[in-house]
């Protein structure tokens, strides 16, 4: 009988226990892969950012806006190919329980700067023609059931309608995100021209003046992003409002950092999960090995080396946890789409990388080795005569 067959026989001797062990490991690996994927998805959003797009914000605060007059001056800076005015519209949708970002932009510039935002040609034309038209992401459309032509009421908070009622927008386009790009699929874009209209009808908005949350620049070919950023910031170093220009990657990194120390929290939880798996696998293997003390004694008595006995236990453990790892990590990969839908509110983008799947399987197998070391050693150091005499 080969080693492989012996291990397989041992593993299937108590099918219920082995199945439970595989299932248990699979659940834990699934959880660990889920946690790691949240982190890698965040990182991929940073890695995937374009190198030739720059954001210009107030250097003072994420929530302070810049004067709208900056646009023309920024456009004059050498190396700036185009400028878009991203402006936080705020407001609430229905009872405010469903949150999605609402941003006013220049649609023509948005389409030029973001080739990864895919919108049919007819819808693009409609958006440019209709001041009340809005562009929503596929993720948002699926979540809230929006279709082209639907009316969407948004209660203004920063931009309040003079009669106090909700503003009404019309879904003029739905965007998809290009397959290998990372972009939030749940943004609600409205037209900058609509803000101009608000300022015409609302004396209060007019008094506040036109402000822009962030300028999105595209760097012209042949220019270094860092040089262009430096030139923009130098222009406003002494005010009236200082600017902070950075690459889109740095901007996304900053936004993620503002969510707090998620990495550390997930690290702690992950450690607890791994430790729990270690305990449970070790426990199961110790029970399995103890039941077979007699057999181990016979094997030893026949003259096999102690490590031959030990490796049976280790191999069985690795087989079971490895199988659990394959089920758990593979399951996480397959479930990524479903998880994204279920947790749509919290995770607008979410994907499970192959590296995570590999780490899950490898980690599970490694846990299998570590957890079985103690039970295996105990089998290896058995005294054959004693075991056989015990008559178990």
């Amino acid at each position, binding site marked *: 009988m080969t080693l492989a067959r012996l291990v397989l026989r041992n593993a299937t001797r108590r099918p219920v226990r082995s199945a439970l062990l595989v299932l248990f490991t699979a659940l834990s690996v699934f959880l660990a892969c889920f946690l790691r994927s949240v982190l890698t998805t965040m990182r991929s959003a940073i890695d995937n950012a374009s190198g030739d797009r720059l954001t210009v914000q107030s250097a003072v605060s994420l929530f302070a806006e810049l004067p709208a007059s900056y646009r023309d001056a920024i456009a004059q800076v050498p190396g700036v190919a185009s400028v878009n005015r991203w402006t936080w519209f705020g407001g609430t949708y229905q009872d405010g329980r469903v949150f999605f970002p609402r941003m006013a932009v220049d649609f023509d510039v948005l389409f030029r700067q973001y080739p990864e935002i895919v919108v049919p040609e007819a819808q693009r034309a409609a958006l440019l023609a209709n001041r009340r038209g809005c562009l929503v992401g596929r993720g948002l459309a699926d979540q809230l059931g929006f279709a082209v032509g639907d009316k969407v009421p948004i209660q203004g908070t920063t931009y309040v309608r003079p009669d106090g009622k909700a503003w009404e927008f019309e879904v003029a386009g739905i965007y998809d995100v290009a397959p290998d790009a990372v972009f939030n699929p749940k943004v609600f874009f409205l037209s900058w021209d609509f803000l101009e209209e608000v300022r015409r009808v609302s004396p209060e908005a007019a008094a506040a003046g036109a402000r822009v949350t962030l300028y999105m620049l595209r760097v012209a070919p042949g220019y270094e992003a860092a040089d262009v950023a430096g030139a923009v910031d130098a222009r406003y170093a002494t005010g009236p409002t200082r600017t902070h220009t950075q690459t889109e990657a740095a901007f996304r990194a900053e936004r993620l950092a503002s969510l707090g120390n998620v990495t550390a929290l997930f690290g702690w939880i992950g450690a607890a999960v791994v430790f729990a798996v270690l305990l449970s696998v070790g426990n*199961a293997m110790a029970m399995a090995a103890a039941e077979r003390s007699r057999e181990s004694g016979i094997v030893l008595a026949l003259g096999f080396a102690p490590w031959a006995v030990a490796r049976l236990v280790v191999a069985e453990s690795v087989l079971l946890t490895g199988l659990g790892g394959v089920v758990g990590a593979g399951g996480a990969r397959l479930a990524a789409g479903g998880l994204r839908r279920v947790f749509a509110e919290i995770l607008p983008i979410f994907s499970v990388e192959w590296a995570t799947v590999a780490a899950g399987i490898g980690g599970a197998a490694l846990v299998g080795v570590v957890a079985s070391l103690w039970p295996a050693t105990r089998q290896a150091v058995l005294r054959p005569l004693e075991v056989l005499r015990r008559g178990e």
Partner: protein
Amino acid sequence: MRLVPLRYTVRSLVVRWSPSLFSALGIGLTVAVLGGVLALREGFRSLLAETGSDDVVVYLRPGAQSEGESIVRHPQDTNVLKARPEVVVEGNVPLAAAESYLGLKLPRTDGSGTTIVTVRGVEIPVSMRIQGPKWRLVEGKEPRPGSDEVVVGRPLTTRIVGCKVGETLTFNVTPFKVVGVFVHDGAYASEIWGDVDRICAALERPFRQRLVAKVKEGTDVAALEKQLESDKQVPVKAQTERAYFRAQTTALGNVLQFLAGILTTLMGAAAVLGAVNTMLAAVGARTREVGILMSIGYRRFPVFFCFLVEAAAIGLVGGVLGAVLVLPFNGLQTSTTNWNTFTEIAFAFRVTPTILATSVVVAVVLGLLGGAVPAWRASRLVPTAALRRL
């Protein structure tokens, strides 16, 4: 019907101490993670929700969910609100302050980049008076009204660059001098306070974000809220400070609740499987004993119950272990971002008796779930067959 004595259960556990303890530890780890996340949520929630006053009213723009997106016109609307009848007047001064609020990007002292700190423009000394004994100066002095001076919350002095007394913070292009350090028993503890007119000038903000006032005893805030919502002159959303802060915990609170839920479900399911394994092995190893118990007259139910109690005991030990693991976190200082305002806020883990009780109950339930099937299997054994085995 006679039950199997508890002594038998306890002795069985002790004899098989190693697998029992390991299963208990597995359950313990699960409920420790659950308890830890709940303690995080509780610390955050209690700092914000339980320290707001019921006799302080916050007036925001209708529809605004937080100060950050609220705009109150100054001075026309703020003056109208300060003159409202419910506001307490001391001497000739109404205890009402028009305050500004902005989260500024400031560098951390540990070199890990910038974080967002709330800079609040306040009316000196009225804003401090509204807070009463909860707000205390612990170092230096209060800023002079109309000056470019600020006081900082104590947690900031070690975490943020330039927050020690005598140092200078630059807001946009205007330098402000740190003249004092304060503590607040609540949500304002991690803020920077300075003269509202000077701060609004430095940050080029012509508006105020809220009006806050001490209201007379017996004011019906619910009625007030309804009345002011539809006010023709100055429509505002009025709510008690406590209600306001409670609403500010929803985003992070929901995320933590969600995290606690998913972790408990997955880790709990895994722990149950571990417990099933242990109990199956326990039943398997004691097949003969079960046969003996049955042949001396114990019925199926007592046998089932006996093993279920054993599983519950494992869960209980696990719950206690979990509680012991999570207890040291109590009072541990941490800081996180409040997802409603995206500002950083310092608070401590709070392990409450409720959280400990929850952990223990969940642990016992996990033990029972793990023990149900093995116990049922034990109770189905046929005595003669069980005795004949081995």
